[in-house]
């Protein structure tokens, strides 16, 4: 069930990504970090087939991602965007239920997902009345409702950007649960606490290329992150089981 990118390149206007060749193992959380406009979102969108690629190939368990039909992609890949759109007048429960658009209706799965993100009591509220953080939790709940035995890849783009520390930690636990189901989990993030505490592998990106990849403990060290971001980093203790490289103010 490995996700593999072979010489993947993407062009979006003046921006070019790649070529990128990288393999993502199931059961692990892969954190993609890099400065603004380094290509994190483009990379993860390309990996789940939401962005057309210029050249190369991406395969999930041997199946080309860009050749998947809409229903097959929904069955295999779950995605949480950086900025989820909240349509007017739809209710929270209705938006979460859309995760099961291509599956049989399952009100219990919707209820369970809403409980996991702490929004069960808001099920009947309009989504356009929610805060940015709550909207993001709705998108995470929709992803959870979409999870099925066929799901092989879970991609989260900046999942903690609008969340408070408690819900950031919850999203980390949910991502771990997805990995424990045997999914490949990829998280694009600027949250170094999340990277250090929740991710197994780190992919460092700059100017559309992968600069380094490997275990978080070895790749995401203060020296490499300082060089990547042009800002000082230092080891912080007490955030996770092992020291975490964090930006120094």
């Amino acid at each position, binding site marked *: 069930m490995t996700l593999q990118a072979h010489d993947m390149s993407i062009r*979006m*206007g003046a921006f070019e990504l790649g070529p990128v060749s990288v393999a993502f193992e199931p059961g692990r959380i892969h954190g993609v970090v890099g400065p603004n406009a380094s290509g994190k979102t483009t990379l993860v*969108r390309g990996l*789940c*087939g*939401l962005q057309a690629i210029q050249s190369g190939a991406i395969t999930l368990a041997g199946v080309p991602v860009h050749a998947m*039909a*809409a*229903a097959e*992609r*929904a*069955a295999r*890949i*779950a*995605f949480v*965007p950086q*900025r*989820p*759109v*909240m*349509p*007017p*007048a*739809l*209710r929270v429960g*209705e*938006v979460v239920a*859309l*995760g099961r*658009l*291509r599956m049989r209706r399952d009100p219990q799965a919707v209820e369970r997902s809403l409980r996991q993100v702490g929004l069960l009591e808001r099920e009947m509220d*309009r989504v*356009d009345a929610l805060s940015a953080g709550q*909207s993001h939790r709705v*998108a995470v709940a*929709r992803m959870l409702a*979409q999870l099925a035995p066929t799901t092989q890849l879970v991609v989260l783009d900046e999942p903690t950007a609008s969340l408070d520390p408690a819900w950031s930690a919850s999203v980390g636990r949910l991502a771990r649960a997805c990995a424990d189901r045997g999914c490949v989990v990829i998280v694009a993030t600027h949250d170094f606490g999340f990277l250090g505490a929740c991710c197994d592998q780190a992919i460092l990106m700059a100017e559309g290329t992968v600069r380094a990849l490997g275990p978080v403990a070895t790749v995401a060290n203060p020296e490499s992150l300082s060089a990547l971001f042009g800002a000082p980093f230092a080891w912080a203790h007490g955030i996770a089981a092992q020291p975490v490289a964090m930006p120094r103010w």
Partner: protein
Amino acid sequence: MRSARGWIALLVIAVACVAARLLVARSLDGTLQLGWQADAAAWRLGAVTSGAAAGAALALSGLLLQSMLRNPLASPFVLGLSGGAQAAMTLAALLAWKAGAQVSPAASVVVGCAGSMVALLLCIAFGRSRERGLDPVSLVLAGVVVAAMLGAVATLCEWMLPPSERAAVHAWGLGRVPEAPSTALLVALLLVLGVAAVGAWSGGRALDAMQLSDDEARAVGVPLAGMRWSIVLGASALAAAATALCGPLAFVGLVAPHAARGLLGGAHRQTVPATLLVGAALLVLADATRAIIPVEGGRLPVGVVCALAGGPAFLMLLRRGAVGAWRA
């Protein structure tokens, strides 16, 4: 519970609008006729049928456009679909007159649909950028310009017609709900409306998902490209068929979806039938209002009533917060 109350309110309003049109008419000499008159029943029922069908079609066209484009200002009039249909039909009438022929009702709808599609595709082409996709403001600006240009084309074609042909085209261009509609036009409109309504209702959940971002819609399994082309065709055909029967009418396609969402929420399984009902009721009510207002020298165009009443109705919905925007 809220849904049941919304449906009851909507049905009561719709029945009241139909009753109003059945009980009000204005004779050709300008006399106001109040109350039921058996000898005029066929005319009044004809007007109710025409108005309800055209109003429902414009409303559904507006709902599909708003959902596809995630734009609360999208409507067949604002984006130039009605203008495109009007321009294409007037041009067809001009060419037919020059060739000494007549445009059949079916051909009129097909030509109008092509005009609507051209208008919509122009709006989408100029309303999007490669980096940001569809921009709501750019889309509406493109629509205003496209509608103005197509309006000029329609006016030019109208003025090139001889006076004997021009009067009928001019009256149609101002908007009117026919009491004795062309059977072929009415059948074409009802066919388009039936197919589009069944398609929109059965694909209601996919339409819900389409209102998310492109990435989110694709991620939950919406085949976006196919759905978009279906909506472009459906919204254009609805606008064209309604325009062929009643002329270009403003605000019905804009106000009805917002009113329906305000009453019954945003899920399309509810919004589609509610929008059809609101649109039908609005145009029938506008036609009844037209009949009440005395005007010297003929009948008041229903398009004038739609604009005069639809504008304040939209502003009222805006004031009450019932015009929701797609928020990222």
